[in-house]
């Protein structure tokens, strides 16, 4: 009860000057956050690509720091900066906010850990639960993904407590793409392997600094080829896979290699 009284006393003592100061702090914090939100993405855009992944994650960190600084300043203004007053306000706030926004606070805590541990960064391609897409932004409470279907998905950071995070490129610009080819088992596998390598090596999307690998596996219905390679830009992954598929089919067709009759088999068995 004494603590409640002290808190009330603190707020009763707040005059017009303090209110103006608080308003100024809030306004200043908001303005700095807006500048950070606009300026850093622009800096990332005009900077060399290799710096993009380092600059963009700074945005939520800076926002958090600005918010904390603003809150501390406001507390100082309210309490006159005595320890007893700060402790009283902090205790009361923690009590109230802790119950009211338990989930939100958990997400904020997870967000701080996410910023520190880098399970995902803007520009990464991640899969969390059923959502797969490019991380567009990492906010204090949640991250925003854009799926290949151009749908924005907001995922609270506290999902990292309970779900696995699959990160396809982990801060790198490139990620591995796989094009699948299902062929009739009667063919010269060595020639097909070399031809599929050439298909990847001549793709304009290919990152030539990374390896091209062709793996194959015999299945009951035929031979399954996987052509694995990296595009220069992870944002081109679907165009890259399409390019490999289109040109792979063309090359294999010219070699007279028939696709596996898997569709027919599936229809017959169904």
């Amino acid at each position, binding site marked *: 009860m004494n603590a409640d009284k002290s808190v009330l006393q603190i707020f009763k003592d707040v005059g017009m000057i303090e209110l103006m100061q608080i308003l100024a702090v809030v306004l200043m914090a908001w303005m700095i956050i807006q500048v950070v939100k606009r300026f850093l993405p*622009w*800096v990332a855009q*005009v900077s*060399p*690509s*290799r710096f993009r992944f380092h600059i963009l994650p700074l945005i939520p960190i800076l926002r958090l720091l600005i918010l904390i600084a603003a809150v501390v300043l406001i507390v100082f203004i309210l309490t006159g900066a005595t320890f007893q007053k700060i402790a009283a306000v902090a205790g009361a706030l923690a009590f109230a906010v802790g119950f009211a926004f338990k989930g939100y606070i958990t997400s904020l805590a997870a967000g701080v850990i996410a910023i520190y541990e880098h399970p995902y960064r803007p520009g990464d391609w991640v899969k969390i639960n059923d959502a797969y897409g490019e991380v567009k932004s990492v906010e204090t409470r949640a991250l925003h993904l854009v799926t290949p279907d151009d749908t924005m998905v907001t995922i609270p950071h506290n999902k990292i407590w309970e779900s696995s995070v699959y990160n396809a490129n982990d801060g790198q*610009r490139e990620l591995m793409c796989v094009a699948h080819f299902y062929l009739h088992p009667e063919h010269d596998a060595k020639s097909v392997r070399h*031809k599929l390598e*050439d*298909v990847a*090596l*001549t793709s*304009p*999307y290919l*990152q*030539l*600094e990374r390896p091209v690998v062709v793996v194959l596996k015999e299945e009951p219905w035929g031979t399954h080829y996987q052509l694995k390679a990296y595009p*220069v*830009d992870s944002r*081109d992954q679907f*165009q890259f896979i399409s*390019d490999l598929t*289109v*040109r*792979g089919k*063309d*090359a294999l067709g*010219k070699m007279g290699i028939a696709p596996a009759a898997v569709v027919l088999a599936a229809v017959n068995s169904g």
Partner: protein
Amino acid sequence: MSDAQPQPDRNTVELWKYVSLDQYVRPKSPAGEAVRKGFLGLWDKLQKGLTGNDGNDGSVDHPYVDQALLHSVPQQLLDDAAPEPNWNDLTVALDEALEERFLNGSPASHVQFVVLPSCSGTDGVLLHWSLIKKWQIITPPDPAEIFHGGQESLAPLRISSSENFVIPHLERWYMRHHDGLTVIRKLIALLAARAPRCVIGVNSWSWAYLNKVLNLGTYFQTPLILQALDQQRLTTWLKGLAGRTGRKIFVFRQTDNGNLVLPLPSSLIQPDTNESAQQQMLEDSVSAKTTKFTWHLASYARGIPLVAWAIWRYCLRSTQPAFTADEDDKLAKALRSDDEHTVWLKPWSATELPAMPGKTNNIHIFTLHNLLLHGQLEIEWLAHLLPFSTADLLTTLKQLASLQLIELEKGMWRVAPLGYPSIRNFLQREGYLLDSF
């Protein structure tokens, strides 16, 4: 073209030198340039973004020459101030380097590669050398033949087993297409197995690509390459070019402070003084305060001769206005009696060179990368290599040509020397495979 043996000239031999690839040294940028590019470059962009001002206007607050008085140099004067280089001068240097390689090399040295930096302008040197040495020139297959195995083009290599030969453009023996690598694989296998000597020219971007795709570098001796022009040699070269026609004397000065960009020509040294005084004046003129323009130029052009020459010509300004073709002739006559000309250049930081458009996408990247890989391409073949329609490609090519980044000659699109540094920097930013030069 002369059939005589190349006669060594002391100056040209010192100016041009072919070195092993691992001894190639790219000219360094002035120390301040890196800082300027990093911080001031960012500031320029910010200023441009906020105000629409390019940020350069204020850099020359009190110019030595009023900018309004400066014009493009009249064509006649330009061709005297920076005439087209005569690349045959390089043949001597190439001959020396190849002789040394063939005499002292390892058993694998019968095949020698000469890497040509893109837009270096030196493609014809190997051809000139082969004509002088009377070595057989193997012409590349046309693109359609590449897709059908290239048997006709490979035939001379199979038949003449003892004759030395030259392949001037290896980049024209393949296409970046899944059916476009067969011929070059056969060619490399033939080269590795044959005894006679051969010299193969390849552009630097193709060398980088073929090294990744065919591991070319592991089969053959380290290639030769023309050493990059550093500031000192670029200055000597440009000064020599300006005096080559002998018709006029040019003094190159910077617009902001009037300082010399190139040392004074030796012909301006007073002839009535004694020999030691003349020598002293010559040394003084060389060591006279010259600006850092050629240092910046050598670095920006990556020491590539034709790129540096194209940018040099682009930057020259005159107080004489440019005229139409007819008027230009009249001006040329009028100027005939006037032997000494001052040509002006803006300071490097205020120089505006062709740049990539603000908005780019994959069509720009792939088009430029393929033009650099293959040296030159017809639009028909570009459309065959890339997943874009001919109409889209044509729009892009015309856009890039309007920005002076690429050019069309005899139906072939290629990267313009003037735009090469911008394009290379752009592809580097985008993370694409680059040459090493």
